[in-house]
Protein backbone atom coordinates (compact mmCIF):
# COMPACT_ATOMS: atom_id res chain seq x y z
CA UNK A 1 0.00 0.00 0.00
CA UNK A 2 2.85 2.34 0.89
CA UNK A 3 4.57 1.52 -2.36
CA UNK A 4 1.40 2.39 -4.30
CA UNK A 5 1.06 5.68 -2.45
CA UNK A 6 4.70 6.54 -3.10
CA UNK A 7 4.27 5.72 -6.78
CA UNK A 8 1.15 7.89 -6.92
CA UNK A 9 3.00 10.78 -5.29
CA UNK A 10 5.92 10.33 -7.68
CA UNK A 11 3.59 10.58 -10.68
CA UNK A 12 1.77 13.61 -9.28
CA UNK A 13 5.08 15.37 -8.72
CA UNK A 14 6.16 14.82 -12.33
CA UNK A 15 5.47 17.28 -15.15
CA UNK A 16 2.72 15.03 -16.50
CA UNK A 17 1.13 14.22 -13.16
CA UNK A 18 -1.47 16.98 -13.16
CA UNK A 19 -1.46 20.24 -11.25
CA UNK A 20 1.39 21.46 -13.43
CA UNK A 21 1.64 22.74 -16.98
CA UNK A 22 3.81 20.40 -19.06
CA UNK A 23 3.64 22.85 -21.95
CA UNK A 24 4.42 25.89 -19.79
CA UNK A 25 1.55 27.99 -21.12
CA UNK A 26 -1.78 29.29 -19.90
CA UNK A 27 -4.68 26.98 -20.80
CA UNK A 28 -6.12 29.50 -23.30
CA UNK A 29 -2.84 29.77 -25.18
CA UNK A 30 -2.47 26.00 -25.20
CA UNK A 31 -5.99 25.60 -26.56
CA UNK A 32 -5.15 28.12 -29.29
CA UNK A 33 -2.13 26.01 -30.21
CA UNK A 34 -4.28 22.87 -30.31
CA UNK A 35 -6.71 24.69 -32.62
CA UNK A 36 -3.84 25.88 -34.85
CA UNK A 37 -2.44 22.35 -35.11
CA UNK A 38 -5.84 20.87 -36.04
CA UNK A 39 -6.49 23.68 -38.53
CA UNK A 40 -3.04 23.17 -40.03
CA UNK A 41 -4.03 19.56 -40.71
CA UNK A 42 -7.12 20.79 -42.58
CA UNK A 43 -4.99 22.99 -44.84
CA UNK A 44 -2.42 20.21 -45.22
CA UNK A 45 -5.26 17.99 -46.45
CA UNK A 46 -6.32 20.65 -48.96
CA UNK A 47 -2.81 21.19 -50.31
CA UNK A 48 -2.03 17.49 -50.60
CA UNK A 49 -5.38 16.90 -52.33
CA UNK A 50 -4.43 19.77 -54.66
CA UNK A 51 -1.06 18.11 -55.37
CA UNK A 52 -2.80 14.81 -56.07
CA UNK A 53 -5.34 16.43 -58.43
CA UNK A 54 -2.58 18.25 -60.23
CA UNK A 55 -0.37 15.21 -60.69
CA UNK A 56 -3.23 13.03 -61.90
CA UNK A 57 -4.56 15.66 -64.33
CA UNK A 58 -3.57 15.28 -67.98
CA UNK A 59 -2.42 18.92 -68.03
CA UNK A 60 -2.19 21.95 -65.80
CA UNK A 61 -2.20 25.68 -66.62
CA UNK A 62 0.94 27.68 -65.93
CA UNK A 63 -0.04 29.67 -62.85
CA UNK A 64 2.44 32.52 -63.34
CA UNK A 65 0.64 33.26 -66.63
CA UNK A 66 -2.92 32.78 -65.39
CA UNK A 67 -2.56 34.89 -62.22
CA UNK A 68 -1.58 38.50 -61.75
CA UNK A 69 1.61 37.73 -59.83
CA UNK A 70 2.24 41.41 -59.00
CA UNK A 71 -1.05 41.44 -57.10
CA UNK A 72 -0.34 38.09 -55.40
CA UNK A 73 3.12 39.30 -54.30
CA UNK A 74 1.60 42.51 -52.96
CA UNK A 75 -0.97 40.44 -51.02
CA UNK A 76 1.90 38.42 -49.54
CA UNK A 77 3.67 41.67 -48.60
CA UNK A 78 0.51 42.98 -46.89
CA UNK A 79 0.05 39.79 -44.86
CA UNK A 80 3.72 39.49 -43.81
CA UNK A 81 3.77 43.17 -42.81
CA UNK A 82 0.58 42.76 -40.78
CA UNK A 83 2.15 39.77 -39.03
CA UNK A 84 5.20 41.85 -38.06
CA UNK A 85 3.08 44.65 -36.54
CA UNK A 86 0.91 42.03 -34.81
CA UNK A 87 4.05 40.76 -33.04
CA UNK A 88 4.69 44.35 -31.91
CA UNK A 89 1.08 44.63 -30.65
CA UNK A 90 1.59 41.51 -28.52
CA UNK A 91 4.84 42.98 -27.16
CA UNK A 92 3.09 46.23 -26.19
CA UNK A 93 0.16 44.36 -24.62
CA UNK A 94 2.58 42.31 -22.53
CA UNK A 95 4.45 45.48 -21.53
CA UNK A 96 1.16 47.03 -20.33
CA UNK A 97 0.83 49.70 -23.03
CA UNK A 98 -2.76 49.30 -24.30
CA UNK A 99 -2.66 52.49 -26.41
CA UNK A 100 0.36 51.33 -28.39
CA UNK A 101 -1.12 47.82 -28.59
CA UNK A 102 -4.32 49.29 -30.10
CA UNK A 103 -2.23 51.28 -32.60
CA UNK A 104 -0.41 48.15 -33.80
CA UNK A 105 -3.62 46.11 -33.76
CA UNK A 106 -5.23 48.73 -36.01
CA UNK A 107 -2.28 48.51 -38.41
CA UNK A 108 -2.68 44.71 -38.45
CA UNK A 109 -6.40 45.06 -39.22
CA UNK A 110 -5.58 47.47 -42.08
CA UNK A 111 -3.08 44.93 -43.50
CA UNK A 112 -5.68 42.16 -43.29
CA UNK A 113 -8.34 44.35 -44.90
CA UNK A 114 -6.00 45.25 -47.79
CA UNK A 115 -5.35 41.53 -48.30
CA UNK A 116 -9.08 40.78 -48.35
CA UNK A 117 -9.72 43.66 -50.79
CA UNK A 118 -7.08 42.28 -53.16
CA UNK A 119 -8.60 38.81 -52.86
CA UNK A 120 -12.07 40.11 -53.70
CA UNK A 121 -10.56 41.82 -56.77
CA UNK A 122 -8.73 38.62 -57.79
CA UNK A 123 -11.85 36.47 -57.34
CA UNK A 124 -14.08 38.86 -59.27
CA UNK A 125 -11.53 38.99 -62.09
CA UNK A 126 -11.30 35.20 -62.16
CA UNK A 127 -15.07 34.77 -62.13
CA UNK A 128 -15.36 37.46 -64.82
CA UNK A 129 -13.08 35.38 -67.05
CA UNK A 130 -15.41 32.40 -66.72
CA UNK A 131 -13.90 30.39 -63.86
CA UNK A 132 -16.30 28.52 -61.55
CA UNK A 133 -16.02 25.57 -59.17
CA UNK A 134 -16.72 23.22 -62.08
CA UNK A 135 -15.34 25.13 -65.07
CA UNK A 136 -11.92 26.51 -65.86
CA UNK A 137 -11.32 28.55 -69.05
CA UNK A 138 -7.63 27.57 -68.98
CA UNK A 139 -8.06 23.79 -69.02
CA UNK A 140 -8.88 21.18 -66.39
CA UNK A 141 -11.73 22.16 -64.00
CA UNK A 142 -9.73 21.00 -60.95
CA UNK A 143 -7.51 24.05 -61.33
CA UNK A 144 -10.34 26.52 -60.73
CA UNK A 145 -11.89 24.28 -58.05
CA UNK A 146 -8.57 24.15 -56.20
CA UNK A 147 -8.22 27.92 -56.48
CA UNK A 148 -11.68 28.71 -55.10
CA UNK A 149 -11.57 26.13 -52.30
CA UNK A 150 -8.03 26.81 -51.05
CA UNK A 151 -7.94 30.61 -51.36
CA UNK A 152 -11.59 30.80 -50.25
CA UNK A 153 -10.95 28.80 -47.10
CA UNK A 154 -7.86 30.88 -46.38
CA UNK A 155 -9.72 34.12 -47.09
CA UNK A 156 -12.44 33.06 -44.67
CA UNK A 157 -9.71 32.63 -42.04
CA UNK A 158 -8.39 36.13 -42.79
CA UNK A 159 -11.90 37.58 -42.47
CA UNK A 160 -12.35 35.76 -39.15
CA UNK A 161 -8.95 37.03 -38.01
CA UNK A 162 -9.78 40.64 -38.89
CA UNK A 163 -13.06 40.31 -36.95
CA UNK A 164 -11.30 38.82 -33.90
CA UNK A 165 -8.60 41.51 -34.02
CA UNK A 166 -11.25 44.24 -34.26
CA UNK A 167 -12.97 42.87 -31.15
CA UNK A 168 -9.64 42.60 -29.28
CA UNK A 169 -8.66 46.15 -30.35
CA UNK A 170 -12.04 47.56 -29.27
CA UNK A 171 -11.79 45.82 -25.90
CA UNK A 172 -8.25 47.13 -25.48
CA UNK A 173 -9.39 50.66 -26.37
CA UNK A 174 -11.98 50.46 -23.58
CA UNK A 175 -9.41 49.10 -21.12
CA UNK A 176 -10.80 45.56 -21.12
CA UNK A 177 -7.79 43.93 -22.72
CA UNK A 178 -5.76 41.03 -21.44
CA UNK A 179 -2.25 40.34 -22.67
CA UNK A 180 -3.20 36.66 -23.08
CA UNK A 181 -6.16 37.63 -25.27
CA UNK A 182 -3.97 39.76 -27.52
CA UNK A 183 -1.33 37.04 -27.73
CA UNK A 184 -3.88 34.33 -28.60
CA UNK A 185 -5.37 36.52 -31.34
CA UNK A 186 -1.80 37.14 -32.53
CA UNK A 187 -1.05 33.41 -32.70
CA UNK A 188 -4.12 32.91 -34.88
CA UNK A 189 -3.07 35.79 -37.14
CA UNK A 190 0.46 34.45 -37.57
CA UNK A 191 -1.03 31.05 -38.40
CA UNK A 192 -3.07 32.67 -41.20
CA UNK A 193 0.23 34.11 -42.46
CA UNK A 194 1.92 30.69 -42.25
CA UNK A 195 -0.87 29.11 -44.33
CA UNK A 196 -0.51 31.82 -46.96
CA UNK A 197 3.23 31.15 -47.20
CA UNK A 198 2.38 27.55 -48.16
CA UNK A 199 -0.41 28.60 -50.55
CA UNK A 200 1.84 31.20 -52.21
CA UNK A 201 4.61 28.67 -52.81
CA UNK A 202 2.65 25.55 -53.74
CA UNK A 203 -0.46 26.94 -55.42
CA UNK A 204 0.82 30.06 -57.17
CA UNK A 205 4.48 29.30 -57.87
CA UNK A 206 5.08 25.54 -58.15
Amino acid at each position, binding site marked *: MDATLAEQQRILASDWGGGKS*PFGTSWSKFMMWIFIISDALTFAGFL*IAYGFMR*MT*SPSWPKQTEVFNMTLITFMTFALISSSAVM*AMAVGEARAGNPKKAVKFLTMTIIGGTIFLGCQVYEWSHFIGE*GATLTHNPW*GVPQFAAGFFVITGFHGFHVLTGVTILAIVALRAAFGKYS*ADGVENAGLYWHFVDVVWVFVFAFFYLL
Partner: protein
Amino acid sequence: MTHDAHTDPGHGGGHATSYRQYIMTWCWLLVMTLLALGIGYAPVPEGIKGMLLVAVTLAKIFLIASIFMHLKFEKMNLVMLTFSPLVLSVILFFMTFGDAAGSATHIIETHPSYDERSVPAHEGGAAGAEHKK
Protein backbone atom coordinates in the same frame (compact mmCIF):
# COMPACT_ATOMS: atom_id res chain seq x y z
CA MET B 1 0.32 29.95 -13.21
CA THR B 2 -0.99 32.64 -15.54
CA HIS B 3 1.19 33.59 -18.44
CA ASP B 4 1.17 37.24 -17.36
CA ALA B 5 3.07 36.35 -14.25
CA HIS B 6 6.20 35.01 -15.86
CA THR B 7 8.90 36.96 -17.57
CA ASP B 8 8.90 36.45 -21.30
CA PRO B 9 12.30 37.06 -22.84
CA GLY B 10 10.59 37.83 -26.12
CA HIS B 11 8.91 40.91 -24.75
CA GLY B 12 10.96 42.15 -21.86
CA GLY B 13 14.22 44.05 -21.81
CA GLY B 14 13.38 47.10 -23.90
CA HIS B 15 11.12 47.43 -26.90
CA ALA B 16 13.82 48.75 -29.18
CA THR B 17 15.49 45.32 -29.21
CA SER B 18 12.20 43.50 -29.88
CA TYR B 19 11.22 45.95 -32.62
CA ARG B 20 14.61 45.53 -34.27
CA GLN B 21 14.22 41.76 -34.17
CA TYR B 22 10.70 41.93 -35.63
CA ILE B 23 11.79 44.35 -38.37
CA MET B 24 14.78 42.16 -39.24
CA THR B 25 12.49 39.12 -39.41
CA TRP B 26 10.08 41.07 -41.63
CA CYS B 27 12.96 42.02 -43.96
CA TRP B 28 14.13 38.40 -44.20
CA LEU B 29 10.60 37.24 -44.93
CA LEU B 30 10.30 39.77 -47.76
CA VAL B 31 13.67 38.73 -49.19
CA MET B 32 12.61 35.07 -49.09
CA THR B 33 9.27 35.92 -50.71
CA LEU B 34 11.13 37.53 -53.62
CA LEU B 35 13.44 34.51 -53.72
CA ALA B 36 10.43 32.17 -53.91
CA LEU B 37 9.00 34.34 -56.70
CA GLY B 38 12.29 34.06 -58.59
CA ILE B 39 12.24 30.27 -58.19
CA GLY B 40 8.66 30.23 -59.49
CA TYR B 41 9.75 31.90 -62.73
CA ALA B 42 13.08 30.06 -63.07
CA PRO B 43 13.30 27.68 -66.06
CA VAL B 44 14.19 24.62 -63.98
CA PRO B 45 12.57 21.14 -63.86
CA GLU B 46 9.45 20.91 -61.72
CA GLY B 47 11.05 18.52 -59.22
CA ILE B 48 13.97 20.85 -58.49
CA LYS B 49 11.62 23.85 -58.36
CA GLY B 50 9.47 21.94 -55.85
CA MET B 51 12.43 21.14 -53.60
CA LEU B 52 13.72 24.73 -53.69
CA LEU B 53 10.25 26.09 -52.87
CA VAL B 54 9.87 23.61 -49.98
CA ALA B 55 13.24 24.79 -48.61
CA VAL B 56 12.36 28.50 -48.83
CA THR B 57 8.87 27.89 -47.41
CA LEU B 58 10.22 25.93 -44.44
CA ALA B 59 12.76 28.69 -43.75
CA LYS B 60 9.94 31.27 -43.75
CA ILE B 61 7.76 29.12 -41.49
CA PHE B 62 10.69 28.64 -39.12
CA LEU B 63 11.17 32.42 -38.84
CA ILE B 64 7.47 33.20 -38.34
CA ALA B 65 7.01 30.42 -35.77
CA SER B 66 10.15 31.09 -33.76
CA ILE B 67 10.13 34.90 -33.73
CA PHE B 68 6.56 36.09 -34.34
CA MET B 69 4.83 33.17 -32.58
CA HIS B 70 7.52 33.08 -29.85
CA LEU B 71 8.12 29.33 -30.11
CA LYS B 72 11.77 30.19 -29.51
CA PHE B 73 10.83 30.97 -25.92
CA GLU B 74 8.39 28.10 -25.34
CA LYS B 75 9.04 24.74 -23.71
CA MET B 76 10.29 22.00 -26.01
CA ASN B 77 7.11 19.97 -25.32
CA LEU B 78 5.03 22.61 -27.10
CA VAL B 79 7.58 23.08 -29.89
CA MET B 80 7.55 19.34 -30.65
CA LEU B 81 3.75 19.34 -30.68
CA THR B 82 3.73 21.94 -33.45
CA PHE B 83 5.76 19.63 -35.69
CA SER B 84 2.95 17.05 -35.74
CA PRO B 85 1.04 18.58 -38.73
CA LEU B 86 4.25 18.67 -40.77
CA VAL B 87 5.05 15.04 -39.97
CA LEU B 88 1.48 13.90 -40.70
CA SER B 89 1.50 15.91 -43.96
CA VAL B 90 4.66 14.16 -45.12
CA ILE B 91 3.05 10.77 -44.34
CA LEU B 92 -0.13 11.74 -46.22
CA PHE B 93 1.92 13.01 -49.16
CA PHE B 94 3.83 9.75 -49.54
CA MET B 95 0.61 7.73 -49.10
CA THR B 96 -0.84 9.43 -52.20
CA PHE B 97 2.37 10.08 -54.13
CA GLY B 98 2.68 6.55 -55.54
CA ASP B 99 -0.70 6.65 -57.29
CA ALA B 100 -0.29 10.26 -58.44
CA ALA B 101 3.23 9.84 -59.83
CA GLY B 102 2.20 6.77 -61.85
CA SER B 103 -0.46 8.59 -63.83
CA ALA B 104 1.12 12.04 -64.16
CA THR B 105 1.75 13.46 -67.58
CA HIS B 106 3.14 16.82 -66.40
CA ILE B 107 2.03 18.79 -69.42
CA ILE B 108 2.13 22.45 -68.46
CA GLU B 109 -0.15 24.47 -70.71
CA THR B 110 0.80 27.99 -71.64
CA HIS B 111 -1.79 30.73 -71.99
CA PRO B 112 -1.88 34.47 -72.65
CA SER B 113 -0.51 36.20 -69.56
CA TYR B 114 -2.72 38.09 -67.13
CA ASP B 115 -1.55 41.44 -68.51
CA GLU B 116 -2.24 40.39 -72.10
CA ARG B 117 -5.74 39.21 -71.17
CA SER B 118 -6.44 42.56 -69.51
CA VAL B 119 -6.25 44.29 -72.91
CA PRO B 120 -9.53 43.83 -74.87
CA ALA B 121 -9.23 41.60 -77.98
CA HIS B 122 -10.35 44.40 -80.35
CA GLU B 123 -7.37 46.45 -79.14
CA GLY B 124 -4.97 43.65 -79.96
CA GLY B 125 -5.04 41.91 -76.56
CA ALA B 126 -5.94 38.34 -75.76
CA ALA B 127 -8.99 39.07 -73.58
CA GLY B 128 -11.81 36.75 -74.49
CA ALA B 129 -9.57 34.52 -76.59
CA GLU B 130 -9.26 31.95 -73.80
CA HIS B 131 -13.07 31.60 -73.66
CA LYS B 132 -13.05 29.96 -77.08
CA LYS B 133 -11.89 26.71 -75.49
